């Protein structure tokens, strides 16, 4: 996917000024938060300890990352022994080359896809189309986006959370040339019927992978719609595209992570379908793919191993951080400009795509730590965002006026008398702005700051003045 994170400010401003989007964001706001909270309360009521689960999961993910090279080799050996082919990709282009090669080798004309964020990283649909292979997204949300001119998803688990029922109804009427449906079940049924025919005549299924199990060489897939099962059961060829950080040692470890992932993501106790897939169709089996490929993808991940950002590789892609983020909930996911939005995206995008291409993302956070509190694998997201801000300063990537302002402030701050004079004027200026009020409605030097809130008026004097007065 072409990165557009450098236009974050303009895109965020446009999102704020878009009444349709704002209405849709209000409709969805808080739903995931409530569902997650209820699921965790239920878990506690059953005698479960969600915090202990988070601790165990974070420890498990770190355990794997410490020996990631060996766990990957272990997975590769087990997967190969089960009859799968394991391929490796350094970047998105290599993912596309692999998938197109596989498609050509097996004379594939149509590929059905289950949700994969990595295929978004690679721009896989465009690459397939360019090679004459028809990709069909089958997750309802991803399908809606695909028929809307390949619109990018705005959320990692709820791709069309920014769209309303009306917008989907319009789109289906236009695309399917059927009478307009007004109810969600009717629209879902229509999509089911359209997509069923694609499942049946596709030659290849492409899926992501929630986890890879090293012990057995399997991929674990979690879906609610059943499209994940369709894509991995009906076509002749199945390609799994997944990141190298997704490997877990045992099936027990998988169970631990599933208890966390599902509650954190959708607030369910279990998703409708969890599939552990190992190897190809057996000789006497009626269904299942004859060929299974794993594409293990780096695309920036290897460089995070054992770095100060390694914590980010624990991420299990649940979306809880964006569901709880006041910034994401206000501007939606598109403004972030790349595959991953919200707090996890604001960390991943600069790390995978370059700090200079996502200059505003580490700043697109209030550091309120809601994301850190809900993260199932305890990623200290605010701390990582702060580290990225430090990197920007170190690499001189901040805008010139900010650098000059900070240099100026540093210069003044090192001259106590001048600093005292500055604050003497400053506090009186702010008081004058406030007038008789105890708050400032429009902040003179930075009027944008007070567009949505007031600035508290300071006490009448500076700290130094008050301190000096008390001493006497």
């Amino acid at each position, binding site marked *: 996917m072409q990165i557009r994170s450098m236009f974050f400010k303009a895109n965020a401003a446009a999102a704020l000024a878009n009444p349709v989007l704002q209405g849709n964001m209000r409709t969805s706001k808080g739903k995931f938060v409530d569902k997650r909270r209820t699921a965790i309360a239920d878990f506690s009521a059953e005698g479960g300890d969600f915090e202990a689960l988070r601790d165990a999961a974070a420890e498990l993910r770190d355990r794997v990352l410490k020996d990631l090279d060996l766990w990957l080799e272990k997975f590769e050996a087990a997967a190969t022994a*089960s009859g799968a082919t394991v391929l490796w990709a350094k970047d998105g282009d290599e993912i596309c080359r692999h998938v197109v090669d596989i498609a050509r080798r097996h004379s594939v004309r149509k590929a059905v896809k289950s949700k994969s964020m990595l295929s978004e990283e690679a721009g896989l649909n465009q690459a397939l189309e360019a090679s004459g292979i028809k990709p069909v997204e089958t997750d309802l*949300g991803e399908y809606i986006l695909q028929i809307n001119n390949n619109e990018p998803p705005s959320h990692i688990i709820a791709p069309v959370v920014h769209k309303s029922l009306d917008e989907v109804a319009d789109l289906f009427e236009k695309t399917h040339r059927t009478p307009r449906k007004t109810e969600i079940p009717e629209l879902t049924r229509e999509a089911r019927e359209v997509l069923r025919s694609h499942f049946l005549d596709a030659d290849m299924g492409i899926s992501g992978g929630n986890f890879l199990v090293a012990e057995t060489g399997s991929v674990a897939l979690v879906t609610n719609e059943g499209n994940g099962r369709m894509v991995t059961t009906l076509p002749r060829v199945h390609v799994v595209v997944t990141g190298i950080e997704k490997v877990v040692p045992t099936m027990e470890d998988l169970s631990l992570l599933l208890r966390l992932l599902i509650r954190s993501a959708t607030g369910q106790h279990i998703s409708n379908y969890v599939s552990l897939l190992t190897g190809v169709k057996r000789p006497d089996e009626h269904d299942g793919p004859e060929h299974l490929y794993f594409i293990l993808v780096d695309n920036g991940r290897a460089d995070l191993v054992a770095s100060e950002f390694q914590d980010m590789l624990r991420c299990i892609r649940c979306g809880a951080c964006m569901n709880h983020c006041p910034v994401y909930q206000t501007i939606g996911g598109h403004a972030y400009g790349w595959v991953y939005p919200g707090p996890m995206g604001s960390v991943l995008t600069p790390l995978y795509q370059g700090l200079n291409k996502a200059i505003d993302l580490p700043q697109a956070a209030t550091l309120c730590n809601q994301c850190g509190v809900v993260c199932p694998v305890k990623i200290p997201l605010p701390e990582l965002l702060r580290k990225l801000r430090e990197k920007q300063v170190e690499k001189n990537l901040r805008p010139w006026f900010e650098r000059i302002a900070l240099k100026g402030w540093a210069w003044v701050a090192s001259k106590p008398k001048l600093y005292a004079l500055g604050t003497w004027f400053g506090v009186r200026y702010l008081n004058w702005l406030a007038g008789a009020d105890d708050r400032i409605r429009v902040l003179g030097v930075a009027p944008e700051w007070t567009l949505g809130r007031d600035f508290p008026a300071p006490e009448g004097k500076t700290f130094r003045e008050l301190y000096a007065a008390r001493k006497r």
Partner: protein
Amino acid sequence: MTSREDILTRVREKVGRNVDDTALARGDMEAWLNTRRQGPRPPAAGDLLARFREKSEALSTSIDIVAEWSTVPSAVARYLAERSLAKTAVGWPLLTGHDWAAAGIAFEGRGARDADRIGITGAFCAIAETGTLVLLSGHDTPASVSLLPETHVAVVAASRIVMGMEEAWNLLRAKGGALPRAVNFVSGPSRTGDIEQTIVLGAHGPYQVHVIVVTGA
């Protein structure tokens, strides 16, 4: 250098891999793989069947409890009649031997096709913690039967209801042999919440799931 070598070499450098510690790390890994340590879990309290039933119903799965296998075909027929569904079903070849005809059901043991409306399966086991069926793919147990038809009827022995996913893994290991191609954990009818986060049943898989628990089996 191949991409495989490139990626693995960089990861090795990052983790500070050297010849000396490789054997040690592999030892740790083997120990972890053999220990199969379980994460923190809710305690297994109460009656497993009652819990399975409660959790299943919360997922919109309907439950029927019968005493023995011989009454299963008539229980299936009863369910189909209640829902005004035709008594024509595709099912696991494993279940072909039961007397479906006596209950008026036209049963075909094979993999499912698009036109099939009712799919009848057994289950490897079931999970009380979440109201989940565990289905293994295979020659006699094709995965498509629980996927393509609009209605999925599953039969499970009460003695095969276990507490959690971990017990299912243990049963699977005890069974021996290679893992089946697909281990499918099925929890209620397929659903989507993609449009305005409104849950709709019957996305791509079944609209309804009915489980018949056999207590005497």
